[in-house]
């Protein structure tokens, strides 16, 4: 869990919603944060996402971070939240912005709309230790390794990180 000390250096942020008028900002952010370029279909999807699944983080008056999720039914027929992207512009990292964003996602199963969620999960490139550490810090478990998951980046493998829920409450491990 997070220590109170790091809290004090957190950047104060404000959350905002995504809509057609500011979509370009998310595109710029993602382009700068991720090694993968997301296509138009991705943005069409997140634009349609129900409130809560996409959030923008503003510092002062400009965008420095965002997350995009998708609600899906897993192969086990259980409803899950899949974290498509979560990212913060490089200069603003290590300031608790990502944690504040992830906290928002972790709150979702407590809401009426997402109380049936059984799992929140994401894919992390195997080389991305920072991200793995980040998820672990927030109580995620590292699951199976998927080989050749990515097409254009190296290494092409990823881990699945996940967190289980029942009735909106995190399952004790």
């Amino acid at each position, binding site marked *: 869990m997070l220590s109170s000390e790091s809290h004090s*250096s957190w*950047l104060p942020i404000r959350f905002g919603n995504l809509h057609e*008028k*500011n979509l370009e900002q998310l595109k710029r952010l993602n382009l700068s944060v991720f*090694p993968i370029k997301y296509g138009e279909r991705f943005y069409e999807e997140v634009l349609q996402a129900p409130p809560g699944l996409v959030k923008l983080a503003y510092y002062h008056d*400009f965008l420095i971070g965002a997350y995009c999720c998708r609600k899906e039914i897993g192969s086990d027929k259980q409803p899950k939240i899949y974290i498509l992207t979560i990212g913060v512009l490089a*200069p603003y990292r290590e300031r608790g912005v990502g944690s504040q964003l992830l906290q928002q996602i972790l709150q979702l199963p407590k809401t009426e709309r997402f109380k049936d969620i059984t799992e929140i999960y994401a894919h992390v490139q195997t080389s991305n230790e920072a991200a793995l550490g980040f998820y672990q810090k927030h109580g995620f478990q590292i699951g199976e390794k998927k080989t050749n998951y990515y097409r254009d980046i190296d290494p092409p493998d990823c881990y699945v990180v996940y967190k289980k829920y029942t009735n909106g409450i995190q399952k004790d491990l």
Partner: protein
Amino acid sequence: MVASSLPSKEQSTFKNILKYYETKQYKKALKCAESILKKFPNHGETLALKGLVIAALNRKEEAYELVRRGLKNDLKSHICWHVYGLLYRGDQDYKEAAKAYLQALKFDPENIQILRDLALLQVQTRDYDGLMLTRRKLVTIKPGIRNHWLGFAVACHLKGEMDIAIKILESYEGTLGKNSDSLDASSDKRKEGSNQEAKIAQMEEAYETSETLLYHAMILQEMGAWKASLDYLEKNKGRIIDLLSYLEFRANLLVQLLLSKSISTEEFEHLYSGEPETAILQLLDLNPNNLEYIRLYMVVYSFRSDKFLNNGVSSFCLESNISLEACNELQQRYPHSSSLERLTLEVAIGEEFLRRVKEYFSRFLYQGVPSLMTDCKSLYRNDTKVNMIEQVLNEFYHEGLNNCKLTDRNASKNGESYDTQVISKSKDLTPDAVLWSLYFLAQHFDMKADTEQALVCVNKAIEHTPTLIEAYSVKSKIFKHAGGIFQSLQFANEARKLDLADRYLNCQCIQLALRLDMIPLAEAWMSLFTKEEGVKESQNIYDLQVIWYELESAESHFRLKEFSKALKLFKAVERHFQDIIEDQFDFHSYCLRKATLRAYIRVLRLEDKLFGQKYYLRNAKGLVRLYLEIFELQKQKSNNEEHLSLSDLSLSEEKKGQKSKKIHKDDNDKSKNSPAGKEGNAHGVKSTSSSTGSGWMEIDPNGETLYESIRDPLYEANKYISILERYVGDEMAVQTLAFELALKEEKLVLILKAVVHMERIVLNMNKVSSPSNDDFYIFVVKKLHFAYFLEERCSYLEQLPISIISFVKDECHRLCEGSTFEKLLMYYWDMYQESLAFRVHLAELLKHLDMQERYPFVIENLVSKKQGHVERREICERHVALLETLGYPKHVVDELRSFYRNIYPYADCFQPVEELQSAKKMFMEQQLKK
């Protein structure tokens, strides 16, 4: 109104017309009028009233006809004249309306209603002599009414009869005390109503009294009677409710009195020892950021320390009296005043400045306030300060870098973990400190016209935080200032796309698109923020008085030679300003009723200076240029027609031609009688009568009818030149236009006047032959042009009226130094041929006069690129354009273009033409597709 000479039954019907008219039951009113006219078809007053009703139904021409018929039948009826005046007033022709009212008063001199109406017209048309007479009459006839007294006082004040105004106010205030009995009586009556209402009424009354007292003090102040004004305020202190105004007034008066020579310093100290300071500090305690208060403090401070610069007007200006000591003193008292902090930067120098600018900037930087550079523009007049600012910004930048060592993506990719190890986070420096210092540095270099450095910084800023919209706007501005309008548009569009709901970003794009003559794109973007499309949209924009857009659009259409559309849009802007003039009408009665006379006087003075507004003047220049073009086109057309008629017109048809010419002349005369700015109006009236309800932009949206209705373009141009002369006569561009206009009119004296005015401008510049001084060379070349005109039309000089002929001859002789065009040309060529500006202007003149072959050395010289120094971009641009119009082969022009591209790498005008054109076209198509 009682109708004369009608039987009693018709008398009552007549009264009914009025009743129905006032309650807007026009159909019934019309019926009544017609029933009388059946029996008495020539009853003048009924005819007039019928006209009034018809006018209300928007059938203007018929209305005028009826009222004129009425007048013919009953010239001595005040009703007929009154109605005639009302019609003109309805059409906003206040001068004609006033004339009619004055006629009406001849037959009914004490008619209160007509007198009041007349007073409104007279103040609207600024006929202060007439106004005073009317107001005096109203007071004499009905002295019991408060507004009559105030109205009379205002009239005297406006006329400049301050003493009379004061006397009237004094006697009015005298009655205030006496009336207190009757006031009590009336308030007794009100008590029967609700208590609340009575309270409100009482408060209103008290406020009105307070305003009247302050107005009185204001007139005393304007008379220079500062002591009297102070005494007056002191005496009436208890009744003044607007305490802030009171305090401001008093502080101003104390300072004025202190500085004036009307009272000795000893006497002042005896009466008001230390009071100016106390009064000003009292105000500053209320608002330490008010520059007006700070100004007063500075003036007093410098006066006390004998450093006061008593040089007339500027003695009261802040800049000439501000001192560091005074600033320090005030800052100790008000450490949180940012106005003071900013002001100190103006006077502090050296280390002191460095320290303070650092402190000031740091606050903006840490809070991320994008407007810092706009706020600090004035500091850029001082080179030492500019260098220090650069130093400070660089320090901030490096400090920021050291504080948050960037661990960019590459580093992490290379296996270096971007875990917590390297990053030393300081709590007071946030990660955006780097961003803002880059952002400010970019603007700083842009201000220094160092485009390269500015771009480096802004690109770094964008890389740092690619979501900061302002950074794209700054990048757009950098290109714009470097002449790269197309690139500027592209980055403005990047900014716009980041927030499609931002009207400002959208407008930035529209403006740039119009500068690039991409009108369809500008219109498409405009429609994102207006509800309607097509013609309705332009009507919507017109209704919202979006002056900047209509003006930019007009200028663009003008460049594209779409003259009728340009005319329509220029006229639209013109009409907005006429509307603003029009808007004051209601205040003439409203402000008297509410007794807000100080504000009222300020509004009148503002309206008097309205045409001095930047946008109005720019629009006026556009109109003059347009009318000059139209004149040329009409001349060409009539030349062609004349040519035709000479060759194959039969005699009878020629007669017809003469007739139509005569009609033209009548039209001219008519338009000459109408006051400035009415020309478009008369046209508007005509069209509204045909299709009621539709807006000005919807009728004749492309201005063809308007364009066809121009009979005398030079006359129209003259109207605007005279306004331009009044407000910005000392601008070279205005005198150049005046010169061109006078030349087309072939009016020797006016041409001379323009050249002499140019000479005066140039002499006032002090650095006459400084090589970058474009204005100087414009003057020299216009002088040559003038000399040429004199030689060509020497007979003009002899035709002048005897009274001025010798004076004009002397001036011509002086200007041309008693020489000929050719000799002058050679003389100036020897002197100034080194200057590209001179060579370009001269070649333009020769081309205009079609004499380029006579002086081949001027033209040949154009291709040589020898240059001692870097010329201004505008001149280089003209140089390229000139080569094109002179018909130089393409490779020569392109060579020159690429030569200039080395100096101005970003400017559109020096880019390869085809490439730029196709890039623009592609961009526009792409944007329009979306």
